[in-house]
C-alpha cells in the first residue's frame, strides 16, 4: 500500500509539471491581455507609458516558457506568487476560499454516496418493480441534466416561488457574520444541487452491482443455508456489489470539481470556483497555475483513494500490480 502510494506520488511530479506548462501555453495563446484585464476601465484612459510600466511590473512580458519556469522555481520554494486579478498573494486567495469549497463538496459527496447506495440497494432488491422503475428513470434523467440548470431550477422553485431558502451567498445580505444556522440555510440548496448531479452514477452502479451479486453463487449459497434476507442483502450482496462503487468514488472527483465550479457560480458561493473563473478570464497566470495544480492533485488523490479502497475491500486485489 505504501509502495503504491509512493509510486503514484512520483508519477504525479511529471504530470503536474506538464499540466501547468499547458496552462501557461494556453493562456499565452488566448487573445486576452493581462495588462488590459488588470487595468480595467482605468486602462481605457491610461497613457501608453502607464500601460507599459504595468506590463513590466506585472512580469507578464517575455515568452510563456520563461514565465512558467520562473513560476515553477518560485513555487518549489513555497512562493506561489501574487494574484494580479485579486490584488492578493495566491496563497491567501486559496486559504480564504478553499474551506468553503471543501465544505460544499464534502457535504454534497457524502449525501450523494449515502443516498445513492440506499436507493441503489432498494432498487436492486426488486428489479423491474415500481420503485426500481421510478428510481432508474429519474436517475437517467438527472444524468442528462447539467448542474447549472438544476441550480437555476432550484433557485426558481425554492427561492423565488416558495421563498423558503435563500438564493445565494454565505449569509443574509444585510449581515456580515456567518452563523451556523444561516450557513446551513445557505448551504442547503447548492449542496443539494451538487449532490443531485452526482447521485445518478452511484444509484445506477449500486443497483447494477448489487443486482448482479444477488444472482451469484455466494448469495445463492447463503440463501440455501437459510440466512435471513437482511444478512444476505447487506452482508453478501452489498459487499461485493459495492466494489465498482469504490472505484467510482475516485473517478467522480473531476466531475465533482467541474460541478462545484458551476454550482458555486450560480449560487455566488465564495469558494475557490469563482476565483478560478476570474483567474481564467483575467489571464491571471500565478493564480490559474496554482488552482490547476490543486485540481490535478485532487484528481490524482481521488484515483489513488479509489485503488486503495478497492484493495482494502477485496483482499484478492494485489495493490502491488496496480
Amino acid at each position, binding site marked *: *500500500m505504501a509502495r503504491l502510494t509512493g509510486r503514484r506520488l512520483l508519477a504525479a511530479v511529471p504530470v503536474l509539471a506538464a499540466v501547468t506548462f499547458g496552462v501557461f501555453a494556453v493562456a499565452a495563446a488566448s*487573445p*486576452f*491581455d493581462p495588462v*488590459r484585464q*488588470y*487595468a*480595467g*476601465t*482605468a*486602462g*481605457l*484612459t*491610461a*497613457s*501608453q*507609458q*502607464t*500601460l507599459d*510600466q*504595468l506590463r513590466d*511590473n506585472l512580469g507578464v512580458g517575455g515568452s510563456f516558457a520563461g514565465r512558467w519556469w520562473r513560476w515553477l522555481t518560485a513555487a518549489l520554494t513555497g512562493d506561489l506568487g*501574487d494574484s494580479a*486579478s*485579486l*490584488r*492578493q*498573494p495566491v496563497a491567501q486567495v486559496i486559504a480564504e476560499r*478553499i*474551506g*468553503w469549497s*471543501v*465544505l460544499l463538496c*464534502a457535504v454534497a459527496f457524502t449525501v450523494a454516496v449515502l443516498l445513492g447506495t440506499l436507493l441503489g440497494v432498494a432498487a436492486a432488491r426488486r428489479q423491474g418493480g415500481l420503485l426500481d422503475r421510478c428510481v432508474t428513470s429519474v436517475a437517467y434523467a438527472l444524468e442528462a441534466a447539467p448542474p447549472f440548470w438544476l441550480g437555476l431550477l432550484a433557485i426558481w422553485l425554492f427561492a*423565488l416561488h416558495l*421563498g423558503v431558502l435563500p*438564493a*445565494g*451567498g*454565505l*449569509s*443574509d*445580505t*444585510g*449581515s*456580515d*457574520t*456567518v*452563523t*451556523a*444556522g444561516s450557513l446551513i440555510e445557505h448551504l442547503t440548496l447548492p449542496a443539494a444541487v451538487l449532490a443531485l448531479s452526482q447521485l445518478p452514477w452511484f444509484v445506477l452502479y449500486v443497483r447494477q452491482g448489487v443486482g448482479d451479486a444477488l444472482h451469484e453463487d455466494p448469495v445463492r449459497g447463503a440463501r440455501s443455508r437459510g440466512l435471513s434476507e437482511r444478512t444476505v442483502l447487506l452482508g453478501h450482496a452489498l459487499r461485493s456489489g459495492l466494489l465498482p462503487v469504490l472505484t467510482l468514488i475516485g473517478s467522480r472527483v473531476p466531475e465533482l470539481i467541474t460541478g462545484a465550479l458551476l454550482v458555486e457560480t450560480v449560487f*455566488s458561493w*465564495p469558494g475557490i470556483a*469563482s*476565483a478560478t473563473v476570474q483567474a481564467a478570464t483575467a489571464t491571471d497566470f500565478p493564480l490559474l497555475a496554482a488552482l490547476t495544480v490543486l485540481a490535478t492533485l485532487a484528481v490524482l488523490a481521488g484515483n489513488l483513494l479509489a485503488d*486503495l*479502497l478497492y484493495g*482494502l*475491500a477485496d*483482499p484478492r486485489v494485489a495493490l502491488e500490480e496496480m
Partner: protein
Amino acid sequence: MTARTGRRAAALAAAGAVLAGAAACSAPSGGDGNGKGTDSLVVGIAQEPDTLSPLLGYGKDGNSKIFDGLLRHDAAMKLQPALARELPEVSDDGKTYTYTLRDGVRFSDGKPFTAADVVFTYETILDSKTNNPSRGELDALKSVTAKGKDTVVFTLKYPYAAFAERTVLPIASRAVAGKQDINTGAYNTKPIGTGPYTLTNWSKGEKLTFQANPRYWGGEPEVKKFTMAVIKDDDVRATRLRTGDLDGAILPPNLARTFGRDSGKKTLNAKTNDFRGVTLPTENKVTGDKAIRRALDIAVNRTAMVDKILDGAGQAAYGPVPTDSPWFAKGTERPYDLDAARKILDDAGWKPGKNGVRVKDGQQAGFTLFYPSGDKLRQEHALAFASDAKQAGIKVTVNSASWEIIEPAMKHDAVLAGGGNPADPDFDLYNLLHSSLAGDGFNNMARYANKAVDQQLEQARRTNTGSERKAAYDTVQKELRDDPGYVFLTHVDHVYVMNDSWKNVTTQVEPHDHGLGAGPWWNVEDWQRKK
C-alpha cells in the same frame, strides 16, 4: 495491515477530512445574523472593485466611504474642503498649490492623520513600481512636500488649473500601508482610512459591509450599517429589490420603469458626463474627410436614440460636455438635418453610387465601426448610427470584438467609445482632442489634430480665471462643431430605484466609471431616516 483495520483507518481518515473541512470554514460567528434594522441600508451594485486601496486607484474621483480626500465635491460638484481646512492657495504662476490640514482628524485605528500621510499617498501613486493604472491623472504633479504637520505643498510641472480637482483622491494611512507590499498587501482588502465608514467585511463576489465610524470628524453617520451587495445580473438585482432583500439598486431604465407604480419606491435619474460616441480616425480615407465627418455629425438622429435606446433616460450629446453643464458652449447644438448632410456630401464630390452608397474618386463611402462585445448599450448605439449613416449614403459595417482586437484596429476603424468625468472639462477634452496624445493608449483614439484646439486646451490649463477658461472651452467646442473628430451621440443617465424612507437622498453628476461612490448613496453619511 488487515482489511478490517484498513477499513477502519479509511473511515477515520474520511471522517477526519470532513471535520477538517468543516473546521477550516468556521468563520467567526456571533451577531444577530440579520442586520436589517432601522439604521441599516443594503444596496445592490453591478460591479465589484478590484481593490479598496487608494494607492491602486480606489476612490480616485472622490466619495469613497472609507477615506477622505483633501477636498470633496458637494451635490453641485463644487469643490469643498474635507481633510484640508479650506480650498488650496494657488500661486500666481499656477504651479504651486498649498493646503492647510484639518486638526484632530484620526484614522479609524486611532492614529492621528498628518501631512506625512498626504505625502506618502501621492508619492506612492507616482512611484512607477506601484501598479496604479490611473497614475496618468497626476501627470502634472512634480513633487509634494510637507511643511510641518499640517501643511502640504504640491509643485506642478506646468500650470494646471484643474489640479485641485485631482486632490479629491483618498488619503491612505502611511503607518499601515507603508509597511506592506503596496500591490498585493492586506491594505487592498482591509483598508484603514479617515472616512465616515469602516469596512467590516468584504466577501469577494458577494458583498462589502461597512459600519459607521463613531470617531468621524464630520460626526457619526445616522445610517449605522451599510451593505453593498455585488449582483452582476440586472434581473436578479431587480428581483432582490422587489423581495425587499435590497433597499436600493442601480438598474437599466427599462427595468427601473417596472417599479414606477410602487408607492414605497422612488426612481432617481442621475445626470452624467457618461457619453457614447463614434471615433472618426483621421488616418482613414473616408472618416478623415472633413465633409464625411460634418455630414455624419448632422445625419445622426440623437433625439431618437435618447427616446428609443435610453427610454428617455439621457440627453443628446454634441461633445464630451453635456448640454446642461455650465461649461457647455451654447449655440453649438446641431439639429438632425439629413438634407443638409446630403448637400455637404454632394458639394464635396461624394456622388451616389450603386446600392445607394456614395463614391468619390473610386473610393466607396464606407468604414467599419467596432463596439466591445457584450455591451448591449453600445451595440444599440452602433446599429442606430449605422442606420442613420445609411440614409445619408454612407455604409457603416458594424462589428463586435474584445478590446484586444479593437485596440490595434483603432487607427483605421471607428469605435463606439464611452467615457466622461464631470469634475473638470479638461479631463475629457484634453485627453480626447489634444494632438500630442494621438494614439497614446486609449487617449485621443481618433488621432484628432487641430492646431486651434490644441492651443485653446493649453490656454485653458494655464489660466485660473473662470471666464477665460470658459472662453477657451467655448472655442474648442465650436471647432468641434466645424471639424468633428468624433460623432458624440448621447449622455446616458444612470438610473437608481430606492426605498423612499430617507431624507437628503440626491444624486450628483456622475462619471462614466461606476465607482462605489457613485449613486444616490454618494452622501449616505448625511442621510436621516424619515419619521
